[in-house]
């Protein structure tokens, strides 16, 4: 007999027993329900957090980014401040020559919040002077068909060109207008729009800002900038050759520490030993987060594990009770030709039915928990992490409950299978 043919009546029988003992079955399921609900909710929320954070770190340039910023001289070097020339394009050249681990160097000169004006419409945007290397370092791109980014020639010629963030365009031009080629004014100076940056959105895991739920959400700040050639920014707005900082992208994230060391030595040498800069990476943030994630997984996983364990014991208990009540039935089934394996399968299927039904209820409960967590996170955090249940996690949770049911059902099922038919028939 095929396994399926033997299994089908066993499952039908299991459902029948479940229906006949609703309260008892529900009580025995409670552990499974709690276990699956907490497991699925936990994995979902932690995954949501991870996704949220990954995006955040990515938005900061990822793990392979090193940031060099201008810094006040430390106290012991304060008297040498006259000698400090800050971070300049000369540092860019030096790093390019001496730190081969660095693949791209993006010098940045912040101009600040400026009013962008065209034909009576205006908006304000944070204007930064950059070079072509800004794109690979910031992991941005120009949307195909929306022009180009600042080029080396633009930097060389100090061209008055500007690339806009995607959120700026509708504010300045209205919806569905191609801004490339249009001329806008900043502080009376005319800039030709040459491109629009890609729009950054939260993907999978949605990230929203509490006070700007519409139009771009928490990524608005990333979509609202405007970029001009660094030389233009220095010559026409800032008035000196200083940069606000450098963004470095290294090719091999594994060699981050070497790259940091080399960059620091190069910078120190170039600055005659003056520590008028700071170097930072996203590594520490990521490390802190990993620890938090591990702690979350461990504690919530523990709760889920214990619940599933208790759930398994509950199922085993109810199965043993059920078998005790049905010893005669087992005797009858054996008398009419059931083998031990038939009864083993029957009672194992009953345990599995209880755990699957419990698992399904657990999934429904987990949806409630996730919805509640989302609600709380939205209230508590300015950028609430909204986690969404996915089928993979849910089916894993259900699979867990099936495994627990099967493991818990083995011992009772073996007892049923090994009962002596004569003794079983005599049982009162």
């Amino acid at each position: 007999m095929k396994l399926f043919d033997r299994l089908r009546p066993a499952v039908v029988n299991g459902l029948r027993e479940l229906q006949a003992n609703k309260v008892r079955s529900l009580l025995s399921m409670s552990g499974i329900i709690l276990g699956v609900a907490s497991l699925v909710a936990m994995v979902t929320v932690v995954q949501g957090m991870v996704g949220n954070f990954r995006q955040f770190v990515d938005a900061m340039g990822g793990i392979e980014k090193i940031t060099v910023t201008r810094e006040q001289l430390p106290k012991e070097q304060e008297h040498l401040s006259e000698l400090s020339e800050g971070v300049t394009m000369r540092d860019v050249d030096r790093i390019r020559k001496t730190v081969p681990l660095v693949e791209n160097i993006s010098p940045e000169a912040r101009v600040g919040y400026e009013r962008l004006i065209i034909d009576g419409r205006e908006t304000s945007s944070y204007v930064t002077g950059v070079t072509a290397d800004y794109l690979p370092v910031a992991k941005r791109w120009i949307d195909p068909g929306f022009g180009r980014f600042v080029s080396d020639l633009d930097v060389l010629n100090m061209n008055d060109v500007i690339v806009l963030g995607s959120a700026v365009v509708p504010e300045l031009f209205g919806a569905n207008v191609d801004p490339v080629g249009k001329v806008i004014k900043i502080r009376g100076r005319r800039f030709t729009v040459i491109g629009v940056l890609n729009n950054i959105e939260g993907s999978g895991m949605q990230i929203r800002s509490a006070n700007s739920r519409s139009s771009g959400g928490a990524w608005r700040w990333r979509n609202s900038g405007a970029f001009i050639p660094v030389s233009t920014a220095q010559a026409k707005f800032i008035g000196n050759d200083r940069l606000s900082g450098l963004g470095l992208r290294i090719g091999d994230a594994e060699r981050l520490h070497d790259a940091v060391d080399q960059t620091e030595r190069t910078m120190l040498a170039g600055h005659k030993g003056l520590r008028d800069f700071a170097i930072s990476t996203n590594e520490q943030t990521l490390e802190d987060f990993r620890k938090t994630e591990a702690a979350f997984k461990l504690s919530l996983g523990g709760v889920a594990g214990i619940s599933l364990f208790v759930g398994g014991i509950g199922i085993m208990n109810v199965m043993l009770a059920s078998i005790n009540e049905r010893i005669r039935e087992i005797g009858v089934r054996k008398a009419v030709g059931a083998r031990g394996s038939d009864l083993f399968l029957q009672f194992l299927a009953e345990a599995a039915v209880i755990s699957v039904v419990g698992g399904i209820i657990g999934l429904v409960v987990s949806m409630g928990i996730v919805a509640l967590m989302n609600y709380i996170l939205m209230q508590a955090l300015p950028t609430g992490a909204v986690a969404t249940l996915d089928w993979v996690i849910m089916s894993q949770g259900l699979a867990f409950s099936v495994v627990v049911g099967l493991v818990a059902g083995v011992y009772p099922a073996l007892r049923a299978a090994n009962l002596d038919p004569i003794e079983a028939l005599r049982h009162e």
Partner: protein
Amino acid sequence: MPALIAIRGLRKAYVMGDETVHALAGVDLDFQKGEFVAILGPSGSGKSTLMHILGFMDTPTEGSIVFDGQEVAKLDPDLRAWYRSNRVGFVFQSFNLLPRLTVLENVALPLLYRENSDPVANAAAAKVALERVGMSHRLDHRPSQLSGGERQRVAIARAIVGSPSIIFADEPTGNLDVKNVDRILDLLGSLIKEGITVVLVTHDLSVAERSHRVISMRAGLVQEDRTR
């Protein structure tokens, strides 16, 4: 014609505490195809043990059983289950119908454990068996909705559904009123026309008298084997 069942030197001993109980102390018997036999004896005479061994629910300590030409005294549990499902039917004093199953499902139960079991064919066979015992009007009832006589008729239908060679009826009338006793015994007696051997196990002489052959047992031995 060779006997359906031939048993020789059958012994069964149980160890109970320090004592060894000889439930069967050397039994030789033949059962023919289509025979209506009663095994009569007080409790402890070994009649139930004999029925359990012949019904493939137990194995003897010693001796030989030839069933349909095959030696079957020492079969492994799965083979004994096969014989129970394919060759033997049981009728019990307390009916032993499963309360959660319908009449039809109860009757189809033995077929469920056969190889290549098919639900549709099983139900059809169960209907035929229920018609045979006059219970085809109660297919979807639960056992609890039936009278004692009706339950026993359903139990007989369950015993015959798999076309067995032999049916063991263990005090089949013990829980029935006089009117139903006759009806059930008539029904069992009529099965021999279909070539089924019917073995009544009872301690009631009046019941045993309805059969064609009465085997009296005492202390694990055949005391009298009388054909009428």
